[in-house]
């Protein structure tokens, strides 16, 4: 492993809140240290744990306010689900041709968000992208909470919710099995596998950090809580060997999941015969869009969180810039897919396909289409300029626009393809009724879980960030050893 000595020639200010935002020139020799300020191992422990270790009663009031707000959203979600159980999907505006609307839009939106977390935790890990260590814990947590929101939407859209167990291959008195040849059943398998694997991966990464919190715990409840979660971890080298192997294997299996889960979600549409859905471009187009929207959500969460938690030395502007580059890349891929859909519709010579796309951009839902184009294709183009992609305010606003645009993308795909049926007599304009509460409720659920995570779980992978400090290498020159491998 090459030594990554910090570039000492650049003088950075002492204030960690300023230092983390300074953009460094790409050095010609050596690389900028990922953790700024010449930090030692103990600093990482302190910086990450202090947020978790503040006494419960001394939680900052701004945080309590945020948590209560999110809890209100969570209660709204619970109330809405209760109402949905009582009344049924009649409280939605879904009509005869538009049988899939906000329920599925929300599902695809949330499950897509999760993909950035898995990309960071698995694909960037396998490619040895060390900057990922600073952001992976947040992103993985985001994945889990987003998939919980997605699963709630898809479980609740079935109408007769108490029969959802039909989806699983459970031996039953009717001797029926789910139809394994149906894309909807593939989706059940894909999303459940995705959630389980993400959770296992996240927990595996958390165990050594729970052990850190356990060893530092000063009050009984924290000793018990983190002690139980740490599983008796003692940092044994014999354990690390198997642990790292398990981590690599989980990463290796999660990496194809990044590509497969949203591909399977796209099959829900692409395997049908509907113009506007029945295209082979859907799997890569959905995957690019999922990573795009997911990174935007990471930016929306991490930019305020790193400032609020004082972690700018660990999550520096370089992390933000790298993620903005991915947003630019995937946003442009998504733009290419929008263009290619039109080209294929024209080139196929199929008049139903052609009508669907003309209608999509100039028909009754033209406004949704152009919100999608301007948010998803145009807004990330500002990241071609280094000055803009290294500005946290620009990054946050663009990320928020991208999230909006990605929600509208799913709306456009679902609703505009359905509202013009093959028979003009069944054409109908879809108007939502109470669905906005559903979307707001899932945001409440998501933020509530996320804020609880920030308060009680280590938000940075402590044991992984320590490995990217230069002194973590036993052959680091600072220890006075001759350079040489083993």
């Amino acid at each position, binding site marked *: 492993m090459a030594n990554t000595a910090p570039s000492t020639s650049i003088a950075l200010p002492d204030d960690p809140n300023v230092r983390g935002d300074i953009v460094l020139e790409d050095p010609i020799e050596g690389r900028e240290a990922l953790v700024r300020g010449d930090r030692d*191992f103990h600093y990482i422990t302190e910086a990450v744990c202090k947020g978790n270790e503040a006494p419960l009663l001394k939680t900052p009031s701004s945080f309590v306010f945020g948590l209560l707000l999110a809890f209100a959203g969570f209660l709204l979600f619970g109330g809405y689900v209760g109402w949905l159980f009582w009344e049924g999907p009649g409280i939605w505006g879904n009509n005869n041709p538009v049988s899939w609307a906000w329920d599925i839009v929300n599902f695809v939106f949330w499950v897509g968000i999760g993909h950035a977390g898995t990309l960071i935790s698995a694909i960037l890990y396998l490619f040895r992208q060390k900057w990922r260590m600073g952001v992976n814990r947040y992103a993985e947590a985001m994945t889990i909470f987003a998939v919980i929101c997605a699963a709630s939407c898809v479980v609740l859209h079935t109408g007769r919710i108490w029969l959802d167990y039909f989806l699983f291959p459970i031996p039953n008195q009717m001797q029926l099995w789910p139809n394994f040849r149906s894309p909807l059943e593939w989706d059940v398998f894909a999303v459940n596998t995705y959630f389980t694997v993400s959770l296992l991966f996240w927990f595996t990464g958390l165990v050594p950090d729970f052990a850190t919190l356990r060893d*530092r715990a000063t009050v009984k409840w924290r000793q018990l809580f983190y002690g139980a979660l740490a599983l008796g971890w003692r940092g044994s080298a014999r354990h690390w060997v198997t642990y790292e*192997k398990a981590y690599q294997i989980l990463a290796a299996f999660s990496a194809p999941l990044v590509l497969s889960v949203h591909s399977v979600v796209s099959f829900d549409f692409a395997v049908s015969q509907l113009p506007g859905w029945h295209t082979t471009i859907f799997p890569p187009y959905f995957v690019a869009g999922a990573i795009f929207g997911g990174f935007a959500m990471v930016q929306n969460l991490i930019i305020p969180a790193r400032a609020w938690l004082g972690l700018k030395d660990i999550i520096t502007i370089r992390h933000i810039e790298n993620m903005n580059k991915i947003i630019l890349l995937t946003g442009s891929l998504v733009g290419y897919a929008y263009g290619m859909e039109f080209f294929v519709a024209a080139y196929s010579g199929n008049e139903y396909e052609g009508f669907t796309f003309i209608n999509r951009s100039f028909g009754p839902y033209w406004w949704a289409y152009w919100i999608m184009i301007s948010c998803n294709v145009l807004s990330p183009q500002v990241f071609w300029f280094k000055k803009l992609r290294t500005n946290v305010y620009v990054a946050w606003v663009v990320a928020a626009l991208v999230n909006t645009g990605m929600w509208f993308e799913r709306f456009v795909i679902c609703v505009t393809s359905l509202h013009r049926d093959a028979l003009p007599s069944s054409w109908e304009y879809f108007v939502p009724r109470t669905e906005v509460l559903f979307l707001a409720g899932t945001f409440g659920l998501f933020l509530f879980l996320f804020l609880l995570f920030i308060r009680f779980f280590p938000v940075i992978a402590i044991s992984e960030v320590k490995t990217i400090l230069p002194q973590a290498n*036993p052959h680091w020159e600072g220890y006075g050893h001759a350079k040489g491998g083993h």
Partner: protein
Amino acid sequence: MSTTFGLLAEYENPAQLYAACERVRDAGYTKWDACSPFAVHGLDKAMGLKPSTLPWWVLAFGVGGSIFMFFFQIWAMVYAYPFILAGKPLFSIPAYVPCWYEATVLSACLTAFFGNWVLNGLPRYHHPAFSSKSFARVTDDKFFIMIERRDPQFDQAAAEALLKDTGASSVEELED
């Protein structure tokens, strides 16, 4: 009188730990361990550890889960309740692929997750090292080597001399 579990030596940095592990390995100890706040790169070689057997378990259970799901789908779709839907043939390998693939991934990942804890003997309620006050920093910024008394060539004086000679900042006795 309490019996000793072994000796616990504390080191300040990964370089010291690495060098000390090479010494302990070369001295021929077998029942010993190194503990660190993060996985020190290359320490398995410095300790002379064998590679983990976990990948073989994952392979076995992954392939097993894969084979099971493939035949389960055939049985459920073709024999248990044959029913033509969407014009797809009852036996259709392309249509079986997604669930087949997901079941493979799931069984492999569950094996990797649970295998990791089982092979490491975790969760574990207590370990003698936790009785040491200084060991609390093993998950923070300190590095440790433990030589256990049940090692066939354990001799307290000799082991203590070896650990002190490797630059340990402190060597203490662990109670069992």
